[in-house]
């Protein structure tokens, strides 16, 4: 048995100098339903004041990149916040559900982008993905790429979650 037989799509992938890997898991609406199934929510965007921004930075120890908080208030208590984190090679948008008691209900990754040889911090590169949703149905063979290899740490997401919990305490609650 030879379990390592090359897959037919391989050669084209091997030769690229710049490589990117991107997956869209959920749109914002789908993430809302995934975290708070059946719940109604109303958009409650918040613009942080400079004072709030520096207080959040100080308390969480995490840099705040944007003053705009994409928050939704959940009927019956709780918040939904959509956010993004950018690493050296990765761009990840995610959503967090916070219960009325201020605890993390659930976290869902919405989009994951990874690039090498390119620049993930570059705004135009990221812009090409804006507005993409997972409405288009996944097709197993064409759309799904699976990677085995040493992992990028999920530290950026952990930092992002810490920052949002402090944001909730200082600006939403």
């Amino acid at each position, binding site marked *: *048995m*030879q*379990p*390592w*037989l*090359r*897959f037919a*799509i*391989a050669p084209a*992938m*091997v030769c*690229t100098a*710049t*490589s*990117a*890997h991107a*997956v869209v*898991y*959920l749109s914002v609406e789908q993430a809302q339903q*995934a975290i708070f199934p059946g719940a109604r929510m109303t958009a409650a965007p918040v613009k942080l004041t400079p004072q709030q921004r520096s207080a959040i930075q100080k308390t969480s120890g995490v840099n705040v990149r944007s003053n705009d908080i994409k928050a939704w208030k959940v009927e019956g208590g709780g918040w939904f916040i959509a956010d993004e984190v950018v690493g050296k*090679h990765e761009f*990840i948008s*995610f959503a967090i559900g916070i219960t009325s008691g201020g605890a993390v209900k*659930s*976290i*869902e*990754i919405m989009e*994951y982008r*990874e*690039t*090498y*040889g390119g620049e993930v911090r570059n705004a135009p590169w990221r812009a090409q993905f804006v507005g993409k949703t997972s*409405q288009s*149905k*996944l*097709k*197993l*063979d064409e759309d*799904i*790429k*699976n*990677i*085995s*290899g*040493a*992992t*990028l*740490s*999920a530290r950026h*997401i*952990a930092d992002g*979650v810490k920052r949002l919990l402090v944001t909730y305490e200082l600006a939403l609650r």
Partner: protein
Amino acid sequence: MSSPCGESQVVRRARPHLGTIVEITASGLEEPALVSAVGAAFSAVSKVQSLMSYHDPLSELSRLNQGGHSEPVRVSAWTFSVLRAAQKLAAESDGAFDVTIAPRLVSWGYLPRVPTLGRGELLATWRDVVLGPGRFVQFRRPLHIDLGGIAKGFAVDCAVEILRRRGVPTGLVNAGGDLRAFGPRDWPVQIRHPRDPGAAGHAFALRDAAVATSATYFSRKRWRKCWVCPLVDGATRLPCEDQLSVSVHAPTALLADALTKIVLARRESAAAILQRYKASALLLDREGHCRFVAANA
């Protein structure tokens, strides 16, 4: 999003767990059934994390590390089965796989410093861990266990088990590169190139089996004028030096995960243990050249 009757759906979700991103893909049932099965599979992964995290002072593993030397500590069935598998692999690999190397990783800064950790813990080996009847675990000397080299694979197996029990016919669980596929289809899998981790060093079709990869390209660093990485030969206590990527193909993700560490330490000499577990290995060097161990055609 409703679908025409009978059409097979695919649900793919990702959540941060186990210090990485865990991705679960399920297909072959109606969407609501898939969504609920995927949710249950994530809960299993989350439970493994709460039991076996070295970083979480409240985990069952931390409780064992704190008390295991003074008296036998009873652990859950899941933690006990991972420890049993780990001890068996340690014995079979002459200590190349060893869950007691945590203090070494602490001193290199890969694991957090714990107040109860003393200098004596550096001398402990897997032989100082005693698994008794009734799921009681005791240490012969003060030591710290880290299940980082095996628990991620176990979590993937648990998630697959839940999906199958919920009637999902095909699916794939990927915990940051430790992945397992089930059901009657081929899944394209790419292995990162050790020098250019964004590119594929090798691509193949995975079917009803697991594959895991261990490599140092993201984690290598300097420590007191030496290169170190979190992958350590348990027998020599030395870090794996070169930029090599090892992937293991095995029946379960637990085995694939743990066996990568043994192959990193033993290379071609790991052929016998791989064969015993119906596993095989693919080694990729810096230039992207492939070498296979125990992968007879």
